């Protein structure tokens, strides 16, 4: 390349202020992209990696220790008790699974909508999805009490002659989440194959050659391979698209199908999906802002990417805010005293603090993203993205706990507080998540190399730098 200095531009170019900001900054060459992305996994282990990994590992062990304690002692070690029989476990489940949604949205829906900026972030977001769904999956399994019977969740012929209750949304959840996980893993792995082949071809040691070679499935980058790959990728994108909407809709039905005030509302599915994408983008920002800096990938995950993700966060956050307002309005408009009380209780009852944390973090603070200055200030964006995650956790807390703590009969009212086991289990899932994520950072290409190359100016034959011109390929 290097032909940037003086170019004869044959076609009219829009004035600079109207030009799109390129998706790969500093007109980096194709070779540079391969080096930069593969280098993260190939180079010497960076100094920050080991402490981060060890802390995550210790926390992951904490998670397993808590699960062992729970299994050996019983669910009584959690803060659950009449009337709040769903506590942090379900809150954490919904929270983690919601986070996963950004990955699928970026990889599937944005692919179908030809949003070319997705290429910079999709790989990491999909990895985040998979690890988040793993964390989420832990909770429903361990909350059943007799964990050794958790296989009853699946419709397997058994010596009891009974099937799971197919009319229960909890059953649909099993299918939704396991399908989601399977398709997400397939999609992620499919996308990885060409890049694994890159890693294989660059590998110096026999072990790395073997490892990457095994999973690259003999990819040679021939036209035939690419043609099959593109078709399969499109099909998987099509399959994943409904999942973005269905999984969290079904999670919301866990609540909406019941008849409790505050849960039994038709707005839940769209409201949950918006909230899931909102929290997912929050998590993507939380992860990628430090990573682009630490791994030196600022030219591939540019400010334009951050800006666009802030806009998605703003849009979905506003939908969530609208849903909150609509819930309250309908509670008033319905004239149903139980419904009205449920919402009055959320805002001014014993859990008022959780409600207002939720409103502040999910509705008020993301509105700052209307300002370009905020969207381009990385530290501020990072802090807001963390607040979004906190807010979304409290949203699930508000939904699960405030409703259950105030039953129809005042004699059954109660106050739920988590125990140290609840807290340590939740913290432990972060260990699980970050252990996997850090391993992913060190061993796999964290950006889709082949796809990013496709959105560089050089890849466009009509671009002055692209095609079979001087300096091109």
């Amino acid at each position, binding site marked *: 390349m290097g032909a940037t200095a003086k170019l004869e531009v044959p076609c009219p170019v829009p004035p600079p202020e109207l030009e799109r900001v390129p998706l790969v900054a500093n007109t980096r060459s194709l070779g540079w992209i391969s080096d930069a992305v593969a280098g993260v996994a190939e180079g010497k282990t960076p100094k920050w990696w080991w402490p981060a990994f060890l802390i995550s590992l210790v926390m992951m062990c904490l998670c397993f220790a808590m699960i062992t304690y729970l299994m050996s002692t019983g669910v009584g070690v959690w803060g659950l008790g009449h009337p709040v029989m769903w506590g942090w476990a379900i809150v954490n489940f919904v929270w983690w699974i919601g986070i996963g949604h950004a990955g699928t949205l970026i990889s599937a829906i944005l692919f179908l909508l030809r949003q070319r900026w997705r290429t910079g972030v999709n790989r990491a977001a999909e990895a985040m999805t998979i690890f988040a769904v793993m964390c989420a999956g832990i909770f429903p399994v361990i909350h059943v009490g007799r964990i050794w019977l958790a296989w009853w969740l699946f419709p397997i012929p058994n*010596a*009891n*002659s*009974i099937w799971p209750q197919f009319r229960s949304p909890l059953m649909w959840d099993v299918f939704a989440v396991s399908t989601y996980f399977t398709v997400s893993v397939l999609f992620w792995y499919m996308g990885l194959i060409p890049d694994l082949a890159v890693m*294989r071809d660059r590998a110096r040691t*026999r072990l790395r*050659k*073997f490892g990457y*070679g*095994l999973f690259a499935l*003999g990819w040679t980058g021939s036209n035939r391979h690419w043609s099959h790959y593109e078709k399969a990728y499109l099909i998987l994108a099509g399959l994943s698209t409904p999942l973005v909407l269905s999984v969290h809709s079904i999670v919301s039905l866990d609540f909406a199908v019941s008849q409790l005030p505050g849960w039994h509302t038709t707005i839940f599915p769209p409201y949950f999906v918006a909230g899931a994408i909102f929290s997912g983008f929050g998590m993507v920002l939380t992860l990628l802002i430090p990573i682009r800096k630490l791994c030196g990938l600022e030219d591939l995950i540019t400010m334009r990417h951050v800006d666009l993700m802030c806009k998605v966060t703003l849009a979905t956050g506003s939908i969530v805010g609208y849903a909150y307002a609509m819930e309250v309005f309908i509670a008033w408009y319905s004239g149903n005293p139980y419904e009205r009380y449920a919402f009055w209780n959320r805002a001014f009852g014993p859990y008022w603090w959780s409600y207002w944390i939720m409103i502040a973090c999910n509705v008020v603070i993301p509105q700052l993203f209307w300002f370009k200055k905020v969207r381009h200030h990385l530290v501020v964006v990072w802090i807001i993205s963390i607040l979004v995650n906190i807010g979304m956790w409290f949203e699930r807390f508000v939904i699960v706990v405030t409703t259950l703590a105030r039953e129809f009969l005042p004699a059954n009212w109660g106050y739920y507080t988590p125990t140290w086991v609840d807290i340590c289990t939740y913290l432990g899932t972060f260990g699980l998540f970050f252990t996997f994520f850090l391993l992913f950072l060190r061993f796999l290409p964290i950006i889709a190399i082949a796809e990013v190359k496709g959105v560089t100016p050089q890849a466009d034959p009509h671009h002055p730098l692209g095609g079979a011109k001087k300096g091109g390929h």
Partner: protein
Amino acid sequence: MSDIFPKWTNKLPGYVILGGALLGTAVVAGTWYYFTPKYTRVGYQPLQPVSFSHHIHVEQLGMDCRYCHNGVESSYHSNIPSSTTCMNCHNQVLKDDPKLALVRESAAAGKPIPWVWIHKTPDYVYFNHAVHVNRGISCVECHGQINLMDEVQHAQPLSMTFCLDCHRHPEAFLRPPEQVYNLNWKPDDPTRQLAQGRRFLEEWKVERLEHCSACHR
């Protein structure tokens, strides 16, 4: 690449799939056979402290089940007789037989004989004997032909499937009330059994209880 993966590895995926399928089948079949109550429970025959023979008492002497298990018609629990019940006869019959030493000792001391419990239902199952025997379900359906056993053994799996088979199709098992304690009774022919069973079902208002709290309260 060929230096990493020799040519024969091309066949490896096929072998892995085949091996996985075979292993999966073996695990499923093995679990099905060896880890279900049909295998794990049927045939359990512990040695009892006193070698009491149901065969002799029922078939040779013609005793009714309810002489010893006298609570079965009125209680959820079918009682194991206390040793004083044994002594009703054995204070005269075989009164010095060494095989009955433990029975005499137990009756004198008022301490129960430590029988080994064979037919266990889990603590989360509420099985009511009275309800079953009073509506035409014979002892034999769950306990097998106890009347022919010298040493009692677990004859039926007593799994949840076993319970549900009957709860879903009680007409195949209902018998005339006077034949409940006749463990040798057989219906004349299966079609008549079904017709008769359906009639009992209707007349006695027997319900096909399949909801969870019928047994798990």
